[in-house]
């Protein structure tokens, strides 16, 4: 509920901590700090959201409850997806430079992108922090796995994640809830992979296959985590972190609060708070805090730093190194799909399962023997899902193939009528999908900066991206495509479409498309080559901290969020400790 007076009242206070952004990083910081008794003000540009409140619920709705049958005309991932925002937001543009590409996915809601994320929760392994020591490229983190392990362990237990301990060196064990059993196509993939020497393990998703406390229910297997779970059985910052933080009485949550800049004291150079504009009323406000934490997502945090200019910080706050915005990097991604004729006319039963893959393949290769330096993991899709917009599309590419009919006779592709209807039934649930998600090599010349000519509808200067893939990523994508084709062949499947080749960089997705952008204010021990120290504390401003993926030195061949959460927890505990010692 919007209450005009909280915006006015909060101006009177000096908070212990002001946090910008309520996604993975901001939610974790707000939770940790309020539980420790700190008075926290959390600024969120987006609107309130609670997946258990009927006015937001889309879970268990049928496709015909949407006039567009769930397609993504108004929401990037469809009508039922819990993402307010998207690749383009009206009145909030961003730009690109030098003909390069970068697509930027932003969510504008309490909980940020954790409301609809894939819940794939992979902790980094020892190698992921020390890539330069291994292959000489990029940089090492100033911290290692041993520094992070206690925090990964804590969030595993606190937030809940299923999976299995496999004793893998660079995909470390954790504290896992029981994983769901593989679906039929996942068993087939596993079998094929075994023959090819590719490992397949239960996936690791932050979904409660067992209830872990009284606030959250257990998963009831509707496969719809991307819609947000009304039982709070999947992890989202809004329901698992912000909500309990509110219950402490120590949190002032300000939705519709779009931060403009970090305010500083000209004399001391310390951060004093954050100024913001109310996105509904366009009223200008500010909040004061003893400590400021930015967790607006890697791109937005860089933007805030760069836009916070003063005579003391002419190039933006915490940017004496000039590194802010540089080294931005997103996961690589390439995919392929296939039809498995063995699955034609399969018996239909409820195989929804959890809202994501039940098995995955962590990186298994040895880069020393390959022509690209970094690895990737594979995510699998398929099965008898709920039909939605796009169902049946392109059947003329299938039903003319040899042996695709029940009687084995080849028929003309396309068609109409009773036999066509049989084809749709026959092919239902015989599709599988493969997606590689890999680690790029961060580069100084991939960066985001402030566009000198463009402002958004609030008058805030916008971000401009300059991002190019190198040969390392392109060769990795080629390896993904070759691997997918091997697996498909081994399964006896027919790959769909032409194999992506050199002309399309082997299907390598445009930068930003995998939505794992990190590294815009990287950490390090040297204040001339990094923005924050190993505690995510700005080298230049000791009461300014970053709590999202901006401090990442590299991406890992894992998805970023479990590390954002663990790092934000670590930073928050550091703040609590330093406050106790009166160092802050």
């Amino acid at each position, binding site marked *: *509920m919007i*209450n*005009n007076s909280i915006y006015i009242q909060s101006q009177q206070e000096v908070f212990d901590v002001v946090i910008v952004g309520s996604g993975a990083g901001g939610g974790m910081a707000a939770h940790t700090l309020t539980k420790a008794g700190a008075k926290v003000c959390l600024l969120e540009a987006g*609107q*309130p959201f609670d997946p258990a409140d*009927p*006015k*937001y*619920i*889309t879970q*268990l*709705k*049928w*496709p*015909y*409850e949407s*006039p567009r*049958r769930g*397609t993504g005309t*108004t929401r990037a991932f469809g009508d039922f997806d819990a993402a307010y925002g998207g690749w383009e937001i009206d009145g909030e543009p961003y730009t690109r430079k030098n003909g390069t590409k970068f697509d930027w996915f932003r969510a504008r809601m309490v909980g940020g992108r954790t409301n609809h994320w894939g819940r794939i929760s992979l902790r980094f392994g020892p190698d992921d922090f020390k890539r330069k020591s291994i292959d000489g490229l990029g940089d090492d983190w100033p911290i290692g796995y041993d520094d992070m392990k206690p925090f990964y362990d804590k969030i595993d237990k606190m937030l809940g994640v299923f999976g299995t301990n496999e004793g893998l060196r660079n995909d470390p064990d954790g504290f896992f809830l029981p994983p769901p*059993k*593989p679906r*039929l196509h996942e*068993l087939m993939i596993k*079998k094929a992979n075994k023959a090819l020497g590719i490992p397949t393990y239960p996936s690791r998703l932050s979904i409660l296959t067992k209830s872990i406390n009284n606030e959250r*229910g257990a998963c*009831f297997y*509707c496969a*719809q985590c991307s819609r947000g779970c009304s*039982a*709070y059985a999947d992890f989202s910052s809004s329901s698992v972190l912000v909500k309990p933080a509110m219950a402490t009485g120590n949190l002032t949550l300000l939705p519709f609060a779009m931060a403009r800049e970090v305010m500083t004291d000209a004399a001391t150079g310390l951060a004093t708070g954050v100024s913001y504009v109310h996105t*509904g*009323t366009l009223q200008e406000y500010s909040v004061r805090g003893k400590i400021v934490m930015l967790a607006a997502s890697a791109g937005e945090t860089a933007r805030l730093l760069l836009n916070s200019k003063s005579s003391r910080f002419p190039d933006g706050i915490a940017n004496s190194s000039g590194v802010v915005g540089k080294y931005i990097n997103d996961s690589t991604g390439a995919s392929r799909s296939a039809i498995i004729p*063995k699955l034609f006319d399969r*018996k*239909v*039963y*409820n*195989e*929804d399962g*959890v809202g994501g893959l039940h098995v995955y393949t962590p990186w298994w290769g040895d880069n020393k023997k390959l022509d690209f330096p970094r690895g990737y993991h594979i995510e699998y899709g398929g099965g*008898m899902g*709920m*039909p*939605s*917009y*796009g*169902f*049946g*599309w392109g*059947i*003329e590419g299938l039903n003319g193939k040899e042996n695709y009919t029940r009687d084995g006779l080849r028929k*003309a*592709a*396309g*068609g*109409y*009528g009773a036999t*066509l*209807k049989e084809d749709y039934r026959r092919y239902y649930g015989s599709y599988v999908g493969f997606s590689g998600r890999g680690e790029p090599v961060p580069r100084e010349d991939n960066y985001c900066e402030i566009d000198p000519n463009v402002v958004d509808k609030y008058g805030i200067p916008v971000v401009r991206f300059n991002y190019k893939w190198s040969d390392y990523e392109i060769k990795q994508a080629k390896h993904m495509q070759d691997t997918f084709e091997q697996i498909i062949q081994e399964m006896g499947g027919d790959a769909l479409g032409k194999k992506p080749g050199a002309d399309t960089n082997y299907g390598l997705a445009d930068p930003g498309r995998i939505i794992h952008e990190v590294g815009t204010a990287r950490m390090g021990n040297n204040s001339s080559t990094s923005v924050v120290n190993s505690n995510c504390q700005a080298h230049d401003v000791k009461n300014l901290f970053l709590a999202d993926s901006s401090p990442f030195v590299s991406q890992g061949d894992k998805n970023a969020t479990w590390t954002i959460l663990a790092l934000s927890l670590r930073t928050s505990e550091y703040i609590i400790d330093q406050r106790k010692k009166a160092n802050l």
Partner: protein
Amino acid sequence: MKRRDYLKNIGLSSLGLAVLNPDARAMEQLENTNGVPKAAALKIPGGRTKDEAERDAKLMAEVFLNKHELDTITILSDIIIPADKKSGSASQSGVTGFIEFIVKDKPELKTPVRGGLRWLDSESNRRFSKLFTQITPAQRINIVDDIAYPEKAKKQFSQGVNFFTLMRNLTATGFYTSRIGIDDLGYKGNTPNEWKGVPADVLKQYGLSYDD
């Protein structure tokens, strides 16, 4: 949290009750502080944002395809997906209304659909001196057979083939996302349950097991 507590909320929303979103109402009050009177409040259905509800309402009010065009779509979609022993036809499942809406939602479909329907009528006129809606079922099939098979269709019908492919896709999507179509496929999910793995008989059928 108790299971019945959270399922209660879902029950409410899947009845499709339109709840006026209190945040939107509060925002409107805030926006009203400058004293300008507001138009009547829009009902925002559960699960939609204010912007989305406004856009949906605008689309619903817009008229694009006319009655003749919709009649033609009904006939064509029932040729593509007719009723059979197992389930009803495209039009029984509401495909006409779906196509009527989706061309407004995705304006890039407007010209291909409208133009394709004109192509069909002109072809019908050429062959039988009547509109597609006025010819006999056999005459309709005479035209459809020339445009329903992309790989063997004659070059001169390529535009008709493209149109028919689009109609096949829209019809299939509309049908299989309807109640009738979902039941036809036998999709069993979208309901609280316990996933216990692939049924034993299916594992056996494919020679797979959970043991290895």
